[in-house]
């Protein structure tokens, strides 16, 4: 559940942590396996995020009541 909400930054930070833990080598084997599994999950996730990322560009204007209102930013030939 919580994993779904992890940002890219959180994912990659956790990933670095996992790699360090694994490299330290003092975790129990079961724990190492669990860490590795978590790590591969995060790797896949980060990779997918990067592969599928489509840049979102919006133009922000102030609406009548002062709250931000997003509109599409004209794409043209960027």
């Amino acid at each position, binding site marked *: 559940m919580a994993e779904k909400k992890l940002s890219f930054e959180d994912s990659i930070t956790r990933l670095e942590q996992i790699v360090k833990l694994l490299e330290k080598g003092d975790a129990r084997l079961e724990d190492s396996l669990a860490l590795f599994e978590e790590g591969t999950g995060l*790797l896949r996730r980060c*990779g997918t995020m990067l592969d599928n990322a489509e*840049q979102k560009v919006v133009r922000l204007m102030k609406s009548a009541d002062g709250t931000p209102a997003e509109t599409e930013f004209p794409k043209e030939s960027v």
Partner: protein
Amino acid sequence: MQTGRIYEVSEVNEHIKALLDEDAALAGIFVRGELSNYKIYPSGHHYFTLKDPEGTLRSVMFKSAASKLRFRPENGMKVIAFGRITVFPRDGQYQLYCNELTPDGVGDLHVAFEQLKEKLFKEGLFDQQHKKPLPAYPERIALITSSAGAAVRDMIRVLGKRYPLAKVIVLPVRVQGEEAPPEICGALRYVNQWKLADLIITGRGGGSIEDLWAFNDERVARAIFASGIPVISAVGHEPDVTISDFVADLRAATPSNGAELAVPDMAELQIRLRNMETRAAQALDRKIKLGRERLERLRQTRSMLSPLNYIQDRRMVLDFDQERLANAMRNAVHGHREHYGRLAAALDALSPLKVLGRGYSIARGPAGEILKEYTQVHEGDTITVTLQRGRLGCTVTERKK
């Protein structure tokens, strides 16, 4: 004027004023000199003296003209003043009515820039300690710039190429002219107020110093400083430096460079991810290999190599234990027997039967109680006397103390 005629003072002054005012050159003249006695009156008018080594020229700059000054005049500054020269009849003195004042040699904007830079530097707005770290992986990036120029396109393109994960939020503002500074400040505050982004890039493409001037505005500098969200200043081309650059958390040479500095490069990230994957796999392999070696060492031990050995070992231990148990048992029985013998001998020594053997007898009362005193019975009572062999029933005929 007529020779021999007596004139009033004001007539003379008016005459000279008229003479000077007729001179076209004096009506619009540039004068180079050094500022001295510079005073700003509460009225808003500025009074000063222009001087060179040989002489001085009194000058005045009225409030309306002075308000357009883009730098702060200081005594000793070399300036070029433009205005007209005429007489102030009340004092009988001619002076320069200055409309424009610019620093000599360098532009007025340049001086204004240096002055603001020094002022903000002294206030500590450029101090390294105020620089906020940029997020490593920004999720939302606010671009405060013109939505029309090439700059915004460049930034969007670079951000999209390097790190499309980040959402780009464009806050269109004017980036030159009078309206630009308040609009840029407003956008900076707005992004902070609504926490619209985790990183701000503000800037514009290249241009003249006048074009870039909004980014040398004190209000813009202070708004950048006040931003809780990190700000990258990306103004103009490489050599252009603005006050915004100094006060921002990071200075970029150009808008494209600002976008590059704002986000990690996806290609590098993918390499890093692959690298981490390899490292994790290697670490786990090592772990498994170590486990396997340990297991192998255990397998090599004697007991694991031959189960029979293990059983023999155990059996020997068992035999040994059995022996010990038997010994212990034997010792215990022997001890008890000795003890019993001692007790039996002691008991035997104390046996009343032995006493009877020596001729003593035991007398018991009617209730069978052993008699030790004469008071225990009365005359006529039947008592029993136990001998070594057999017993007698007797009647008490006499009691004596």
